[in-house]
């Protein structure tokens, strides 16, 4: 049992770390490294919001047992609300409690006006229940609670028709895409990959952009695009030579070739159904 509890806590920590995405957060710009977590921050505890020291896994496991017996019916196995009882994870009492000082009186006295009975628990047991409640994270992604639903809902036949019409001028399931689906255990990853190879918001690309810089009719340079803004353009020639040109308006002429352009051009065109159908089709390409 102790081993299982340890595993559970590890999973919770991983889920918590994965969920550390802030709506109002701002990631430092490209080229600026993110700070390492401060040494004092308890790992995975929702950075800077949880003042509680990490709990003893054995205590959490005892609390889990007690909670299952005494509390689950009303408050739910995941503490997010059950038959009549409110969500405890967002409860002010639970959020503000450090080590039982707010939770224990509620357990001891109940909340008769709200239909909550008193609980005859020892102080040690109350402390165990409290420790268990504090293992739930209020925000962020909780993969323990939310098993990933199956996204393969499309019509593979319709997807094949769409693929033939829109994709086959560049791609073939017997050529470059041969065995595509066998490379992905997660259909979501397959879907993201075919929508935009290289992923992300188009920042990274599978095949690099190339550029042609025409200095004069007799002087043309071509290579992989290394860097461009309104003022300079840098390309890397096939032999590795790096060349930088100063840009002034349209001089020299700069033409960028983006191999992902057809993928980008389709983004405003797809319906969600098209996407799901193509994914269902490509999932058969094993």
């Amino acid at each position, binding site marked *: 049992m102790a081993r299982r509890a340890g595993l559970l806590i590890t999973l919770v920590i991983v889920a918590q770390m994965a969920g550390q995405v802030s709506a109002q957060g701002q990631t430092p710009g490209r*080229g600026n490294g993110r700070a390492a977590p*401060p040494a*004092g921050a308890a790992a995975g505890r929702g950075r800077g919001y949880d003042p509680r020291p990490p709990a003893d896994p054995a205590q959490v496991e005892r609390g889990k047992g007690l909670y299952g017996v005494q509390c689950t019916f009303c408050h739910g196995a995941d503490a997010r609300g059950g038959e009549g009882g409110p969500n405890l994870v967002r409860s002010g009492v639970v959020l503000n409690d450090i080590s039982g000082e707010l939770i224990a009186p509620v357990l001891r006295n109940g909340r008769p006006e709200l239909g909550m009975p008193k609980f005859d628990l020892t102080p040690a047991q109350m402390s165990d229940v409290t420790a268990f409640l504090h293992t739930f994270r209020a925000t962020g992604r909780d993969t323990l609670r939310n098993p*990933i639903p199956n996204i393969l809902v499309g019509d593979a036949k319709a997807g094949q028709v769409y693929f033939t019409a829109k994709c086959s001028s560049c791609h073939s399931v017997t050529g470059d895409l041969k065995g595509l689906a066998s490379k992905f255990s997660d259909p979501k990853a397959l879907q993201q990959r075919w929508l935009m190879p290289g*992923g992300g918001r188009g920042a990274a690309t599978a095949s690099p952009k190339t550029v042609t810089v025409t200095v004069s009719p007799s002087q043309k340079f071509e290579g992989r695009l290394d860097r461009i803004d309104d003022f300079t353009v840098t390309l890397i020639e096939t032999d590795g030579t790096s060349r930088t040109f100063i840009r002034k308006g349209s001089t020299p002429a700069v033409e960028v070739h983006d191999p992902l352009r057809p993928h980008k051009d389709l983004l405003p065109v797809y319906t*969600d159904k098209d*996407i799901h159908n193509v994914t269902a089709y490509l999932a058969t390409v094993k």
Partner: protein
Amino acid sequence: MKNIKELLFVTALALGSELASGQGLDPSALLKPLSDSWPTYSGDYSGKRYSALTQINQSNIKNLGLVWTSRITAGLGNAGGGRGGGFGGGAAAAPTIIGGEGTGELNESGPGSRSSRIVSSILEVDGKLYFSTPDNAWAADARDGHILWHFVWKTKGGTHTGNRGMGMWGNRLFLETPDNFLVCLDATTGKELWHKMLAPLSQQYFSTNSPIVIGNHVLVGLGNDLDSPAFLTSYDPETGEIQWRWYATPQDASDPALKTWANLTAAKFGGGHMWIPGSYDPETHLYIIGTGNPTPAYTSKSRGEGDNLYTCTLVAINVDTGKLAWYFQTSPHDTHDWDSTQTPVLVDAPFNGRQRKLVITATRNGFFYTLDRVTGEHLVTGKFSPTANWDQGLDGKGQPVRNPAKDFDIAGALVSPTNAGATNWMPPTFSPDTGLFYVTTEDSYAMYYLTDTDPRGSMGLGGKEEQGTGSLGTFLTAMDYKTGKIAWRHQYPEAGAWGGTNVGHALLTTAGKLLMGGDPGGNVVAYDPANGAILWHAQLGGVSGPVQTYMLDGKQYILVSAVDSLYAFALN
């Protein structure tokens, strides 16, 4: 006008001793259009970020050159700025003043930390600059950038995303800290006068905002990514006592907005945090500010089918009473965490043949609005991001009608914009010379997957997975307030997506016929506001904060924050 004069008179009396000694900011200076100094977040109350200064202008900007640069060192383990300390022979280190209720273990430092990244607006008052990052504040000499003092707050935690700047009243500065304290500093010494807790950290509040000083009110908004009640609070600048508090969502059954929610509990914990400053109209005493997203942000069933007022709404709050005067919802029943907190811009300009008092805003969901700022009457809606695909057109009030099929899908819904938005918190600018509103934007797509099929939904930002699928471009976009149409836009060449919620850059316009801002290539650039033609640039390696301007000893400066450094330019 009478009321504001009385208010300012009372304030002036209270400030008597400080102002008599020639120190500090006279609150009436805040009523003037942006010119020599920069005494509040947007430079003046209008949010236009349009400076009347003309010494630097289109004809001479080619002669703009670097005057000074100054580097900060955030955190507890240092004394002052980049010039202090070090090996012998340097200038004496600036004093470091330490405050705070934490242990210091959670404070960030080092060049990559968010406390070393300046995104704040920088105050310029009486030849001194005042600026801040999470847990840190500095004063610097505006003539040569040397650091005068450094204040560090030992934090107890909270989300350390950024800090938007400080407010000033007399010789006092007001700083919000990530662990939710309002800290009042002596502007001369950087020493703490008092601090007040704004909200409990245990409820996952965090504070990044710049306090706004209006008369004897210090207006403070917070952030929260759970679902804790959202409020704007007015504090007394002398004592830190609460004067009034306005909640963004109904907190009791008497609130008429309650009918837009499933029930009172959903409304109470319905979000709407005001984490970016608003703008102020001294004539009507209205503080006009955008509210944040409703919560739960994505799994919205528990909120009911209604509009969820007053989340994602432009609201006008009377600063004397803290009461709502009018509202216009810019994103009814938002389902993508697209806050409408973007700074609104107050403009007096012709509209349909007569001069109107307008408010203009471009919100994170890709839509652009012009309203009457006295009454809230809707005048114009447009799209500044042509790819935005989550709506089914406009309703009779000029509000976009959301398409529920584009909320999310278990198998994924392709939605534009991404969660980061078509724009985000970076301040826009408006030039009366061109009549155009400028904002940095992105046309981007993401797949939104529903991951929580539990009918109870998820709290906060949970319950979905968002995966980016591509950016079709990032832009400097000029909008026509009369039509809601794009006047022109300049695409940043081959630029990838902006990072995080840093969608674009804070902008500046001036009467010298200049439009300035950072670009994704790390340049600070001056454009012709009429057409976006490039006039001047300097490569700084990364522009992180607003471009600002001030005039000192007859010399106009252009001030740029680039990560951990300030750069000041002037004519050679």
